[in-house]
């Protein structure tokens, strides 16, 4: 389990100091895949590097499996780092070593014998599908294969935690999916806790259990992934969700869209639901029962965290009381309804 408590990190001193992280508190439960999302410059890299103290926080505590890394001396810290694997955007493999020897590196550093190293590496070569590449050098591998080597290397010392620093950002979409699948398998098979940072919502959508949004060095939102997609709380989170679901903004769908209701304006709602809720009859029922017309502006089904989820944006046409009643009716069913704004 990873716990960050009131982490602050400033670069520079005095008036020119820049606060990269501002009072970050977050908890990654054991066995979870936890994603931190943010735009470039939001402080994601600094955040993940604070977890194994590659970057020392200016203040705050970093607890991994209950041990506070900030309070450790160099020796204890090195020992603890063996229990925290890390993979990087640019793989960071040693070009002078073969695949096998790259994976062996952390074990060599820990002073393991050749036999112990061999025993640890064989299953990793199988797990990551690198068996035939064991004698290749990194320069002979594709990006996806390189990241597999890096993953095997990170797992070699059997860590409890894996940190992924933009691990798929240098890969094409197909390779990204394969690597994400591998991370998911590792999480399931080995029960390893994964903290990843990314700017790609696709990553969050496909493998994360929980997600946090980092913006300007602050955590502005945190939720289970399904809930996050159903009901993002902040405008920035909303923007991330839209980009992941390829949803258009209501203003793009309706020219006269506005946030606040006006005289005679009609609500635009976002309806989201899990699984195969019979949403279609529900909508027709609401329309019939409350005498409103429901005009669907966009609709899509997506797989989020392994669940089929539906998202639709619709305009409710009818008098105010009727649209309100229809909204309430829908909300009593296993669908989420959120009023985005109004059109005239």
């Amino acid at each position: 389990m990873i716990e960050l408590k009131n982490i602050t990190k400033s670069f520079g001193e005095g008036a020119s100091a820049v606060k990269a992280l501002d009072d970050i508190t977050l908890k990654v439960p054991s066995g979870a895949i936890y994603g931190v999302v943010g735009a470039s410059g939001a402080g994601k890299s600094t955040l993940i590097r604070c977890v194994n103290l590659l970057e020392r926080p200016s203040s705050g505590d970093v607890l991994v499996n209950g041990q506070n890394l900030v309070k450790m001396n160099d020796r204890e810290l090195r020992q603890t780092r063996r229990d925290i694997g890390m993979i990087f955007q640019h793989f960071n493999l040693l070009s002078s070593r073969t695949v096998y020897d790259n994976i062996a590196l952390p074990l060599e550093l820990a002073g393991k014998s050749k036999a112990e190293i061999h025993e640890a590496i064989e299953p990793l070569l199988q797990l990551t599908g690198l068996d035939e590449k064991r004698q290749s050098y990194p320069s002979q591998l594709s990006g996806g294969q390189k990241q597999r080597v890096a993953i095997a290397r990170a797992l070699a010392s059997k860590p409890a935690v894996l940190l992924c620093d933009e691990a798929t950002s240098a890969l094409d979409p197909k390779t990204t999916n394969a690597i994400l699948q591998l991370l998911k398998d590792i999480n399931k098979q080995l029960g390893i806790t994964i903290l990843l940072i990314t700017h790609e919502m696709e990553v969050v959508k496909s493998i994360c259990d929980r997600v946090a949004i980092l913006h300007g060095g602050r955590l502005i939102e945190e939720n289970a992934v399904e809930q996050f997609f159903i009901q993002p709380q902040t405008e920035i989170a909303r923007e991330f969700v839209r980009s992941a679901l390829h949803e258009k903004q209501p203003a793009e769908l309706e020219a006269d869209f506005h946030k606040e209701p006006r005289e005679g304006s009609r609500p635009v709602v976002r309806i989201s639901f899990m699984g195969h809720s019979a949403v279609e009859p529900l909508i027709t029922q609401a329309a019939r029962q409350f005498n409103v017309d429901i005009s669907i502006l966009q609709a899509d089904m997506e797989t989020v965290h392994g669940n089929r989820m539906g998202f639709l944006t619709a305009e409710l046409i009818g008098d105010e009381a009727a649209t309100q009643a229809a909204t309430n009716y829908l909300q009593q069913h296993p669908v989420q309804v959120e009023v985005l704004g109004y059109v005239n």
Partner: protein
Amino acid sequence: MSTDAWLLLGSALWETVYMVALSGAMSFLFGIPLGVLLYSTREGNILQSPLTNQLLGAVVNAARSVPFIILMVAIIPLTRLLTGTSIGTTAAIVPLTLASIPFVARIAEGALNEVPGGLVEAAESMGATPLQIISRVLLPEALPGLIHGITLTLVTLVSYSAMAGAIGGGGLGDLGIRYGYHRFDGVIMAATVIVLIILVQLIQMAGDHLHRKFDHS
């Protein structure tokens, strides 16, 4: 060319190889660790210590700014202390070594700078000690660059050793000056130049071969 001339050429070649090999080996022995220190004490690197870095840098720069011909004469007391004499092939090894240590140090520093910082970071994330980072990551990764630098140093030493010859160090340079220049013996002069060219060529070829062998990037 007479048999005597061949013998002269042979022993001069041996003296040159002896001077270059020994001063080369010594300068790598001291220069590479110095280069590692220059690299690792720099701000932001694994043993950062700006003061040490500036101090070492200043010493290295000072040593490098003394022309070799002057260095040779200036350190005669030291040479005498170390080898018991200030004349001859063995004595020439002292200034040759001293001149190439800072050269090798800067070359090693440059080769280490070429190693991507991400590799050091990855090793740190695995719990590597600074010494392990140097021995397991930095030096192996910088090896192709170091081989380049070593080749360059040896070639430079061949020409420096010729200068050492001028003050009684022996070797091919000495032969060329004494017979070719002072005695107007064009044949010996030409032979000396040809042997030097072949020697440098061989060093370069060996260096290139090793570079290819160890460069997997």
